[in-house]
């Protein structure tokens, strides 16, 4: 982790977010912030509300209470489309790739906000439509190089092993050139080698592109190693917030989650 990376100001802040599903309280009064260029981890036991938090951040769920402040704009909930337009991209816990398409097509979908031509222009395959397709293909190929997916680019994603699928999802998120990346357990189900690769990719993304990263992860080694700051959730409530060292020594966190270190 490079210490000379400049961590900027707060770009995202959530205040007093509460989320309920019928009688189930997924999140209660959560507040924290995220600074530009940092790697922020969200940890906690299963069912703590981590994925729900991410879903709130990018507009999939609407919280009943609280506000989200993104780039200075205060709002009661995030609109999914606006989140995408404002440079938030994400990966999903259970892999939400488009199973009917190849790796290349999946990653190309990540570019969709950059493509301005209408479907009629695309039907006639001339001028702007043609140019955009080629240009975006170039950009996608850069990402394929970055994540070393060259050998599988024309393979239908349904046929790929789990670890590669996760990488493709990351590629799709990166294709949008996001300013903030939300990663939901990007290393789940991977062996040591794959985890190391994925760690490297996440760090490189943060390093090279300056992308702010909010990540949910269970592997404590990974979290303590690569994150700048950590938020700890338990039963929908925040029980810890700070640098990895601060959190590691927090008695509440130890009791709820880490156990004796």
């Amino acid at each position, binding site marked *: 982790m490079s210490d000379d990376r400049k961590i900027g100001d707060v770009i995202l802040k959530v205040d007093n977010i509460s989320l309920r599903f019928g009688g189930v309280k997924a999140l209660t009064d959560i507040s924290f912030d995220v600074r530009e260029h940092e790697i922020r981890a969200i940890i906690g036991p299963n069912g703590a509300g981590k994925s729900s938090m991410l879903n709130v951040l990018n507009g999939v769920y609407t919280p009943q209470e609280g506000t989200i402040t993104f780039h200075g704009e205060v709002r009661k909930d995030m609109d999914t*489309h606006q989140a995408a337009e404002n440079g938030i991209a994400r990966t999903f816990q259970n892999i939400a790739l*488009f199973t009917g*398409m190849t790796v290349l097509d999946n990653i*190309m979908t990540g570019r*969709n906000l950059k493509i301005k031509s209408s*479907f009629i222009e*695309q039907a006639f395959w001339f001028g702007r439509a043609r140019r955009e397709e080629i240009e975006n293909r170039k950009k996608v190929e850069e990402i394929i190089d970055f994540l070393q997916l060259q050998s599988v680019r024309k393979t239908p994603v349904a046929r790929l092993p789990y670890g590669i699928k996760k990488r493709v999802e990351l590629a799709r998120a990166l294709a949008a050139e996001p300013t903030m990346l939300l990663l939901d357990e990007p290393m789940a189900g991977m062996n040591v080698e794959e985890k190391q690769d994925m760690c490297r990719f996440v760090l490189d993304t943060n390093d090279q592109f300056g992308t702010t990263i909010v990540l949910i992860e269970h592997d404590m080694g990974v979290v303590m190693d690569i994150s700048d700051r950590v938020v700890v959730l338990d039963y929908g409530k925040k029980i810890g917030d700070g640098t990895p060292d601060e959190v590691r020594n927090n008695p509440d966190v130890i009791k709820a989650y880490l156990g004796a270190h």
Partner: protein
Amino acid sequence: MIYRESGQYKTTYETDTQIFPIAQDRFAVVALLVIAFLVTPFVATPYMFSAILIPFLIFSLAALGLNILTGYAGQISLGTAAFMAVGAFASYNFMLRVPGMPILLAFVLGGICAAMVGIAFGLPSLRIRGFYLAASTLATQFFVVWCLTKVPWFTNNSSSGVITAQQIEILGYKFDSPAEKYLLVLAIVSVLALLAKNMVRSTVGRSWMAVRDMDVAAEVIGFRVMRTKLIAFAVSSFYCGIAGALFAYCYVGTVEPEAYNLDLSFRILFMVIIGGLGSILGSFFGAAFIVLLPIVLSMIVHVTGLPNSVTSNLELMVFGGLIIFFLIVEPHGLARLWQIGKEKLRLWPFPH
């Protein structure tokens, strides 16, 4: 040995995204087009045109339309025939009421009318999916046909409800004979198929497939799910509308609502399933299959001396059985079988 890609390198992204990247494929397609356009008109009999080639092309077009909606965008539709009907009746009325209307424009306008109806009846799909959507497309099917039957303005107050389609005349040249109609239909279908293929491999195609596969993720990436679905309905209905107009003008010669019934909708759905969902080529395969099957069956019945009433029932049973067969054995239909065949051909004569 012949079907090899070795030596064919793609050096630009543009060439990599070609529709037919393998040179042998390109050659085959060009040869096919040459035969279709230049050789067939002199070789085929009027029967072949009227009973096989023309319906094959028209149904391929309708199947293309349905494939875009159901195969690529994942919106199941049981109301295809209704959109064909709109196209046919709209074209007819434009030709009838607007003096000097060129017939090709009438077809296009018919398609546009069908697209608008498609959008209107596609709106419910924004909130509902699966069987519910199928039910709402059934509503379209019944309602549209009822409308066209009951509202006299559409049929120009014809008492029998059956109207003869106008003669086709483009730039002074009359398209009367089966061969001429065949060429016209072939030209239109070829162009529209090309446009469809272009759409399907561009962003709009990917947006359809994304919505089909995982609409929540599609939303998160920034696709506008509502707009994507409506574009799918619009384009699909446009294609079906043109197919309907061609059906009336170049195939049956009359414009009547009853011809565009639920049975036709099912036939086109079968074409798409058997041919292959999500495949442009599959639409053609499926149409060919469904057009040829009754002919093959009646030949079998003829040869084995079974009574004639057996044919139509046998047809139903074979249709039904084949649908189930394909869904079990190869859900991606004939198109996938074709692909597998080509892959085997690439290796031939080696086993692997």
